[in-house]
Protein backbone atom coordinates (compact mmCIF):
# COMPACT_ATOMS: atom_id res chain seq x y z
CA UNK A 1 0.00 0.00 0.00
CA UNK A 2 2.68 2.44 1.10
CA UNK A 3 4.74 1.92 -2.03
CA UNK A 4 1.82 2.38 -4.41
CA UNK A 5 2.10 5.49 -6.63
CA UNK A 6 -0.73 7.96 -6.51
CA UNK A 7 -1.81 8.76 -10.05
CA UNK A 8 -3.85 11.77 -11.10
CA UNK A 9 -5.57 12.22 -14.41
CA UNK A 10 -4.53 15.34 -16.31
CA UNK A 11 -8.01 16.77 -15.96
CA UNK A 12 -7.89 16.27 -12.21
CA UNK A 13 -4.42 17.84 -12.01
CA UNK A 14 -5.57 20.87 -13.99
CA UNK A 15 -8.68 21.24 -11.83
CA UNK A 16 -6.67 21.15 -8.59
CA UNK A 17 -4.15 23.68 -9.86
CA UNK A 18 -6.94 25.97 -11.09
CA UNK A 19 -8.59 25.74 -7.70
CA UNK A 20 -5.32 26.65 -5.97
CA UNK A 21 -4.77 29.54 -8.40
CA UNK A 22 -8.33 30.79 -7.84
CA UNK A 23 -7.80 30.75 -4.06
CA UNK A 24 -4.61 32.77 -4.61
CA UNK A 25 -6.53 35.17 -6.86
CA UNK A 26 -9.47 35.75 -4.52
CA UNK A 27 -7.51 35.75 -1.25
CA UNK A 28 -6.94 39.23 0.28
CA UNK A 29 -3.94 40.96 -1.22
CA UNK A 30 -2.52 41.66 2.23
CA UNK A 31 -2.08 37.87 2.64
CA UNK A 32 -0.92 36.95 -0.84
CA UNK A 33 1.66 39.71 -1.16
CA UNK A 34 3.58 38.02 1.67
CA UNK A 35 4.78 35.58 -1.01
CA UNK A 36 6.10 38.51 -3.06
CA UNK A 37 7.81 40.10 -0.08
CA UNK A 38 9.34 36.74 0.92
CA UNK A 39 10.68 36.27 -2.62
CA UNK A 40 12.19 39.77 -2.61
CA UNK A 41 13.78 39.14 0.81
CA UNK A 42 15.19 35.71 -0.06
CA UNK A 43 16.58 36.78 -3.43
CA UNK A 44 17.51 40.37 -2.52
CA UNK A 45 21.18 39.67 -3.20
CA UNK A 46 20.82 38.42 -6.83
CA UNK A 47 18.10 41.02 -7.41
CA UNK A 48 20.37 43.86 -6.32
CA UNK A 49 23.26 42.48 -8.41
CA UNK A 50 21.01 42.36 -11.47
CA UNK A 51 19.84 45.87 -10.76
CA UNK A 52 23.38 47.17 -10.38
CA UNK A 53 24.38 45.57 -13.69
CA UNK A 54 21.39 47.12 -15.41
CA UNK A 55 22.17 50.49 -13.81
CA UNK A 56 25.84 50.42 -14.76
CA UNK A 57 24.94 49.39 -18.32
CA UNK A 58 22.67 52.39 -18.48
CA UNK A 59 25.14 54.88 -17.07
CA UNK A 60 28.43 53.71 -18.63
CA UNK A 61 29.72 56.65 -20.68
CA UNK A 62 30.56 55.83 -24.30
CA UNK A 63 34.02 57.18 -25.00
CA UNK A 64 36.67 56.37 -27.55
CA UNK A 65 39.46 56.61 -24.98
CA UNK A 66 42.33 54.12 -25.28
CA UNK A 67 42.56 51.05 -22.97
CA UNK A 68 45.02 52.67 -20.54
CA UNK A 69 42.79 55.65 -20.06
CA UNK A 70 39.91 53.28 -19.49
CA UNK A 71 41.91 51.48 -16.82
CA UNK A 72 42.56 54.78 -15.12
CA UNK A 73 38.89 55.55 -15.42
CA UNK A 74 38.00 52.27 -13.71
CA UNK A 75 40.52 52.93 -10.94
CA UNK A 76 39.05 56.30 -10.25
CA UNK A 77 35.60 54.72 -10.38
CA UNK A 78 36.68 52.14 -7.77
CA UNK A 79 38.11 54.92 -5.62
CA UNK A 80 34.84 56.74 -5.94
CA UNK A 81 32.93 53.62 -4.87
CA UNK A 82 35.18 53.15 -1.85
CA UNK A 83 34.58 56.72 -0.90
CA UNK A 84 30.86 56.22 -1.35
CA UNK A 85 31.06 53.20 0.94
CA UNK A 86 32.66 55.29 3.66
CA UNK A 87 29.98 57.87 3.25
CA UNK A 88 27.32 55.23 3.79
CA UNK A 89 28.28 55.36 7.46
CA UNK A 90 27.21 58.98 7.52
CA UNK A 91 23.64 58.17 6.58
CA UNK A 92 22.36 59.07 10.02
CA UNK A 93 23.84 62.52 9.64
CA UNK A 94 22.23 62.76 6.27
CA UNK A 95 18.84 62.13 7.83
CA UNK A 96 19.40 64.82 10.44
CA UNK A 97 20.47 67.22 7.68
CA UNK A 98 17.30 66.41 5.81
CA UNK A 99 15.26 67.18 8.91
CA UNK A 100 16.83 70.63 9.08
CA UNK A 101 16.11 71.36 5.43
CA UNK A 102 12.55 70.10 5.27
CA UNK A 103 9.55 71.75 6.93
CA UNK A 104 8.49 68.87 9.20
CA UNK A 105 7.98 69.30 12.92
CA UNK A 106 8.11 66.10 14.95
CA UNK A 107 8.10 63.84 11.90
CA UNK A 108 10.32 60.79 11.78
CA UNK A 109 12.36 60.24 8.62
CA UNK A 110 13.07 56.58 7.90
CA UNK A 111 15.97 55.81 5.57
CA UNK A 112 15.40 52.68 3.44
CA UNK A 113 17.47 50.84 0.85
CA UNK A 114 15.93 50.10 -2.55
CA UNK A 115 15.69 46.35 -3.32
CA UNK A 116 14.30 46.56 -6.81
CA UNK A 117 12.93 49.11 -9.27
CA UNK A 118 10.21 48.48 -11.81
CA UNK A 119 9.78 51.29 -14.33
CA UNK A 120 7.51 50.25 -17.17
CA UNK A 121 4.55 51.79 -18.96
CA UNK A 122 2.14 49.77 -16.79
CA UNK A 123 3.94 49.76 -13.46
CA UNK A 124 6.34 52.14 -11.68
CA UNK A 125 7.28 50.81 -8.27
CA UNK A 126 10.19 50.46 -5.87
CA UNK A 127 10.61 47.80 -3.22
CA UNK A 128 12.33 48.95 -0.03
CA UNK A 129 13.75 47.17 3.00
CA UNK A 130 11.58 48.76 5.70
CA UNK A 131 8.09 47.77 6.85
CA UNK A 132 5.58 47.64 9.70
CA UNK A 133 8.35 46.79 12.15
CA UNK A 134 9.91 50.18 11.40
CA UNK A 135 6.65 52.06 11.84
CA UNK A 136 5.73 52.33 8.16
CA UNK A 137 2.09 52.43 7.07
CA UNK A 138 0.28 52.42 3.75
CA UNK A 139 -0.09 55.91 2.26
CA UNK A 140 3.05 57.47 3.77
CA UNK A 141 5.02 59.67 1.37
CA UNK A 142 8.50 58.76 0.15
CA UNK A 143 11.29 61.23 -0.54
CA UNK A 144 14.39 61.10 -2.69
CA UNK A 145 16.76 64.03 -3.23
CA UNK A 146 14.43 66.24 -1.13
CA UNK A 147 11.49 65.66 -3.47
CA UNK A 148 8.48 63.39 -3.22
CA UNK A 149 8.64 60.40 -5.54
CA UNK A 150 5.59 58.41 -4.42
CA UNK A 151 3.76 56.80 -1.54
CA UNK A 152 3.72 53.39 0.13
CA UNK A 153 1.14 51.13 -1.50
CA UNK A 154 1.88 47.82 0.28
CA UNK A 155 3.61 47.28 3.60
CA UNK A 156 4.70 43.97 5.13
CA UNK A 157 6.67 43.34 8.31
CA UNK A 158 10.08 44.17 6.87
CA UNK A 159 9.50 45.34 3.30
CA UNK A 160 7.27 47.81 1.50
CA UNK A 161 6.29 48.76 -2.03
CA UNK A 162 6.51 52.40 -3.09
CA UNK A 163 4.07 53.31 -5.83
CA UNK A 164 5.73 56.15 -7.73
CA UNK A 165 3.62 59.10 -8.79
CA UNK A 166 4.33 58.16 -12.41
CA UNK A 167 2.55 54.81 -11.93
CA UNK A 168 -0.72 54.67 -13.94
CA UNK A 169 -2.61 53.79 -10.74
CA UNK A 170 -1.32 56.78 -8.77
CA UNK A 171 -3.24 60.02 -8.24
CA UNK A 172 -1.78 62.89 -6.21
CA UNK A 173 -3.31 66.21 -5.26
CA UNK A 174 -0.89 68.93 -6.47
CA UNK A 175 -0.53 72.63 -7.17
CA UNK A 176 1.74 74.62 -9.47
CA UNK A 177 4.31 76.71 -7.63
CA UNK A 178 4.01 80.45 -8.13
CA UNK A 179 0.53 80.28 -9.64
CA UNK A 180 -2.89 80.86 -8.18
CA UNK A 181 -4.29 77.54 -9.34
CA UNK A 182 -6.47 75.53 -7.00
CA UNK A 183 -5.71 71.88 -6.16
CA UNK A 184 -5.15 69.82 -9.26
CA UNK A 185 -5.19 66.07 -9.71
CA UNK A 186 -2.01 64.54 -11.12
CA UNK A 187 -2.39 61.07 -12.64
CA UNK A 188 0.58 58.79 -13.42
CA UNK A 189 1.13 57.82 -17.02
CA UNK A 190 3.81 55.17 -16.69
CA UNK A 191 7.13 55.51 -18.51
CA UNK A 192 8.49 58.21 -16.18
CA UNK A 193 5.82 60.88 -16.59
CA UNK A 194 2.57 62.00 -14.99
CA UNK A 195 -0.17 64.23 -16.34
CA UNK A 196 -2.34 67.02 -14.97
CA UNK A 197 -5.30 67.29 -17.29
CA UNK A 198 -7.71 70.11 -18.04
CA UNK A 199 -5.90 72.97 -16.33
CA UNK A 200 -7.36 76.40 -16.98
CA UNK A 201 -4.04 78.22 -16.95
CA UNK A 202 -1.06 77.57 -19.20
CA UNK A 203 2.00 76.47 -17.20
CA UNK A 204 5.57 77.48 -18.00
CA UNK A 205 8.08 74.73 -18.76
CA UNK A 206 10.21 74.17 -15.68
CA UNK A 207 7.54 75.27 -13.18
CA UNK A 208 7.77 73.20 -10.02
CA UNK A 209 4.82 70.98 -9.12
CA UNK A 210 4.07 70.72 -5.40
CA UNK A 211 2.23 67.93 -3.58
CA UNK A 212 -0.53 69.45 -1.46
CA UNK A 213 -0.80 69.03 2.30
CA UNK A 214 -2.49 65.85 3.39
CA UNK A 215 -3.58 65.36 7.00
CA UNK A 216 -1.54 62.69 8.81
CA UNK A 217 0.76 62.15 5.83
CA UNK A 218 2.17 65.51 4.74
CA UNK A 219 2.24 68.68 6.84
CA UNK A 220 3.65 71.03 4.22
CA UNK A 221 3.59 71.21 0.40
CA UNK A 222 6.62 69.54 -1.17
CA UNK A 223 8.14 69.43 -4.64
CA UNK A 224 7.06 66.43 -6.72
CA UNK A 225 8.46 67.26 -10.14
CA UNK A 226 8.71 69.86 -12.87
CA UNK A 227 6.54 70.74 -15.84
CA UNK A 228 8.12 69.48 -19.05
CA UNK A 229 5.29 70.02 -21.50
CA UNK A 230 2.08 72.01 -21.71
CA UNK A 231 -0.33 71.18 -24.53
CA UNK A 232 -3.81 72.28 -25.47
CA UNK A 233 -6.59 69.94 -24.37
CA UNK A 234 -9.22 69.12 -27.04
CA UNK A 235 -11.62 71.13 -24.87
CA UNK A 236 -11.25 74.87 -25.58
CA UNK A 237 -9.26 77.01 -23.10
CA UNK A 238 -7.92 74.01 -21.20
CA UNK A 239 -4.38 72.65 -21.01
CA UNK A 240 -2.77 69.28 -20.32
CA UNK A 241 0.49 69.42 -18.36
CA UNK A 242 3.17 66.73 -18.41
CA UNK A 243 5.24 66.37 -15.23
CA UNK A 244 8.54 64.57 -14.75
CA UNK A 245 10.09 63.59 -11.40
CA UNK A 246 12.67 66.03 -10.10
CA UNK A 247 15.24 63.23 -9.64
CA UNK A 248 16.49 60.19 -11.55
CA UNK A 249 14.51 57.46 -9.84
CA UNK A 250 16.29 54.55 -11.50
CA UNK A 251 19.61 55.68 -10.07
CA UNK A 252 18.33 55.72 -6.48
CA UNK A 253 19.93 53.43 -3.93
CA UNK A 254 18.05 54.72 -0.91
CA UNK A 255 14.92 56.69 -0.16
CA UNK A 256 13.40 58.35 2.90
CA UNK A 257 9.91 57.62 4.19
CA UNK A 258 8.09 60.40 6.06
CA UNK A 259 6.42 59.09 9.22
CA UNK A 260 4.37 62.11 10.30
CA UNK A 261 3.13 60.83 13.66
CA UNK A 262 5.69 58.37 15.02
CA UNK A 263 4.37 56.23 17.89
CA UNK A 264 7.32 56.80 20.20
Amino acid sequence: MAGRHIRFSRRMLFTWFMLAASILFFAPQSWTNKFQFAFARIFRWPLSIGRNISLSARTTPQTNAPANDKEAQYKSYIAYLEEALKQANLKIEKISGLKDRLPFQGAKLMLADVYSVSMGPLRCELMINRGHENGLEKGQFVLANDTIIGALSEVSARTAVVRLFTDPGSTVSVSLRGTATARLLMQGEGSRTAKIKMVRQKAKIGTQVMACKMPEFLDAPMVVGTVTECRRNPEPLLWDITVRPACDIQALNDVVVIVMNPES
Partner: protein
Amino acid sequence: MRWFRFAVLIILVAVVQASLLADLNIRPELPLILLVFFAIYCNPTHAIVTSFAIGFTADLIGPVMGPHTISFGVCGTALAYLHRVIAVRKMPYQALAIFVASLVCGALTHLLSFFQGEPLTAQIRYVLLATSIYSAVVGPFLFLPAAWWMRIRIDRFSRH
Protein backbone atom coordinates in the same frame (compact mmCIF):
# COMPACT_ATOMS: atom_id res chain seq x y z
CA MET B 1 11.58 15.75 -16.01
CA ARG B 2 14.35 17.14 -13.82
CA TRP B 3 12.40 19.16 -11.27
CA PHE B 4 15.36 20.59 -9.36
CA ARG B 5 16.85 21.98 -12.56
CA PHE B 6 13.41 23.32 -13.45
CA ALA B 7 13.14 25.11 -10.08
CA VAL B 8 16.59 26.69 -10.52
CA LEU B 9 15.71 27.77 -14.05
CA ILE B 10 12.43 29.50 -13.16
CA ILE B 11 13.99 31.28 -10.18
CA LEU B 12 16.84 32.48 -12.38
CA VAL B 13 14.39 33.68 -15.01
CA ALA B 14 12.30 35.48 -12.36
CA VAL B 15 15.36 37.23 -10.94
CA VAL B 16 16.57 38.30 -14.41
CA GLN B 17 13.09 39.51 -15.36
CA ALA B 18 12.71 41.47 -12.10
CA SER B 19 16.18 43.02 -12.04
CA LEU B 20 18.06 43.13 -15.35
CA LEU B 21 15.02 43.68 -17.55
CA ALA B 22 12.89 45.61 -15.07
CA ASP B 23 14.03 49.05 -16.24
CA LEU B 24 13.23 48.47 -19.90
CA ASN B 25 10.09 50.00 -21.32
CA ILE B 26 9.48 47.04 -23.58
CA ARG B 27 11.02 43.73 -22.54
CA PRO B 28 10.72 40.09 -23.55
CA GLU B 29 8.49 38.03 -21.29
CA LEU B 30 10.98 35.35 -20.24
CA PRO B 31 8.56 33.31 -18.08
CA LEU B 32 6.20 33.08 -21.03
CA ILE B 33 8.98 31.90 -23.34
CA LEU B 34 9.71 29.14 -20.80
CA LEU B 35 6.02 28.29 -20.67
CA VAL B 36 5.91 27.72 -24.43
CA PHE B 37 9.17 25.75 -24.28
CA PHE B 38 7.82 23.30 -21.70
CA ALA B 39 4.43 23.09 -23.41
CA ILE B 40 6.17 22.07 -26.63
CA TYR B 41 8.87 19.74 -25.32
CA CYS B 42 7.21 18.05 -22.30
CA ASN B 43 4.30 15.67 -22.04
CA PRO B 44 0.96 17.35 -21.21
CA THR B 45 1.06 16.30 -17.52
CA HIS B 46 4.43 17.96 -17.00
CA ALA B 47 3.32 20.91 -19.14
CA ILE B 48 0.34 21.51 -16.82
CA VAL B 49 2.53 21.45 -13.70
CA THR B 50 5.24 23.65 -15.25
CA SER B 51 2.67 26.17 -16.59
CA PHE B 52 1.15 26.75 -13.16
CA ALA B 53 4.59 26.84 -11.50
CA ILE B 54 5.90 29.40 -14.02
CA GLY B 55 2.70 31.43 -13.61
CA PHE B 56 3.15 31.44 -9.83
CA THR B 57 6.76 32.61 -10.24
CA ALA B 58 5.64 35.36 -12.63
CA ASP B 59 3.11 36.46 -9.98
CA LEU B 60 5.89 36.68 -7.40
CA ILE B 61 7.54 39.42 -9.46
CA GLY B 62 4.27 41.00 -10.64
CA PRO B 63 1.99 43.58 -9.04
CA VAL B 64 -0.62 41.13 -7.64
CA MET B 65 -0.84 37.40 -6.95
CA GLY B 66 -3.09 35.11 -9.00
CA PRO B 67 -3.58 36.53 -12.53
CA HIS B 68 -0.38 35.06 -13.99
CA THR B 69 -0.93 31.67 -12.32
CA ILE B 70 -4.40 31.39 -13.85
CA SER B 71 -3.56 32.73 -17.32
CA PHE B 72 -0.28 30.82 -17.65
CA GLY B 73 -1.95 27.63 -16.39
CA VAL B 74 -4.78 27.90 -18.91
CA CYS B 75 -2.54 28.92 -21.85
CA GLY B 76 0.18 26.34 -21.09
CA THR B 77 -2.34 23.52 -20.81
CA ALA B 78 -4.11 24.60 -24.01
CA LEU B 79 -0.80 24.84 -25.86
CA ALA B 80 0.32 21.41 -24.62
CA TYR B 81 -2.89 19.82 -25.92
CA LEU B 82 -2.70 21.83 -29.13
CA HIS B 83 0.81 20.51 -29.66
CA ARG B 84 -0.66 17.01 -29.92
CA VAL B 85 -2.52 18.19 -33.04
CA ILE B 86 -0.23 20.83 -34.55
CA ALA B 87 3.54 20.30 -34.51
CA VAL B 88 5.60 23.33 -33.43
CA ARG B 89 9.07 22.27 -34.54
CA LYS B 90 10.51 24.99 -36.71
CA MET B 91 11.66 28.30 -35.32
CA PRO B 92 9.11 30.46 -37.18
CA TYR B 93 6.28 28.30 -35.81
CA GLN B 94 7.79 28.52 -32.33
CA ALA B 95 7.97 32.30 -32.69
CA LEU B 96 4.34 32.34 -33.81
CA ALA B 97 3.34 30.16 -30.83
CA ILE B 98 5.16 32.52 -28.45
CA PHE B 99 3.56 35.55 -30.10
CA VAL B 100 0.02 34.17 -29.83
CA ALA B 101 0.57 32.80 -26.29
CA SER B 102 2.01 36.15 -25.21
CA LEU B 103 -0.98 38.06 -26.60
CA VAL B 104 -3.55 35.72 -25.05
CA CYS B 105 -1.75 35.36 -21.71
CA GLY B 106 -1.05 39.09 -21.52
CA ALA B 107 -4.65 40.04 -22.28
CA LEU B 108 -6.00 37.52 -19.74
CA THR B 109 -3.48 38.60 -17.10
CA HIS B 110 -4.34 42.30 -17.49
CA LEU B 111 -8.06 41.53 -17.43
CA LEU B 112 -7.71 39.52 -14.21
CA SER B 113 -5.43 42.19 -12.70
CA PHE B 114 -8.09 44.78 -13.55
CA PHE B 115 -10.62 42.78 -11.48
CA GLN B 116 -8.17 42.98 -8.59
CA GLY B 117 -8.11 46.77 -8.82
CA GLU B 118 -4.99 47.29 -10.95
CA PRO B 119 -5.41 50.16 -13.46
CA LEU B 120 -5.81 49.54 -17.19
CA THR B 121 -4.09 52.24 -19.23
CA ALA B 122 -4.44 53.22 -22.86
CA GLN B 123 -0.92 51.96 -23.52
CA ILE B 124 -1.80 48.34 -22.78
CA ARG B 125 -2.48 47.40 -26.41
CA TYR B 126 0.82 48.89 -27.53
CA VAL B 127 2.75 47.25 -24.67
CA LEU B 128 1.09 43.86 -25.27
CA LEU B 129 1.87 43.93 -28.96
CA ALA B 130 5.46 45.12 -28.53
CA THR B 131 6.15 42.60 -25.73
CA SER B 132 4.69 39.77 -27.84
CA ILE B 133 6.81 40.69 -30.86
CA TYR B 134 9.94 41.03 -28.72
CA SER B 135 9.30 37.68 -27.00
CA ALA B 136 8.56 35.97 -30.33
CA VAL B 137 11.83 37.22 -31.82
CA VAL B 138 14.00 36.34 -28.81
CA GLY B 139 12.16 33.24 -27.59
CA PRO B 140 13.17 30.52 -30.09
CA PHE B 141 16.85 31.37 -29.54
CA LEU B 142 16.43 30.82 -25.79
CA PHE B 143 15.00 27.33 -26.35
CA LEU B 144 18.48 25.93 -27.01
CA PRO B 145 20.08 26.94 -23.66
CA ALA B 146 16.87 25.99 -21.84
CA ALA B 147 16.93 22.55 -23.47
CA TRP B 148 20.61 22.14 -22.61
CA TRP B 149 19.99 23.05 -18.97
CA MET B 150 16.93 20.79 -18.71
CA ARG B 151 18.69 17.95 -20.61
CA ILE B 152 15.83 17.82 -23.09
CA ARG B 153 16.62 16.69 -26.64
CA ILE B 154 14.95 19.12 -28.97
CA ASP B 155 16.24 17.51 -32.18
CA ARG B 156 14.05 14.46 -31.59
CA PHE B 157 10.40 15.16 -32.26
CA SER B 158 7.67 13.41 -30.31
CA ARG B 159 4.00 13.93 -29.59
CA HIS B 160 3.01 12.80 -26.11
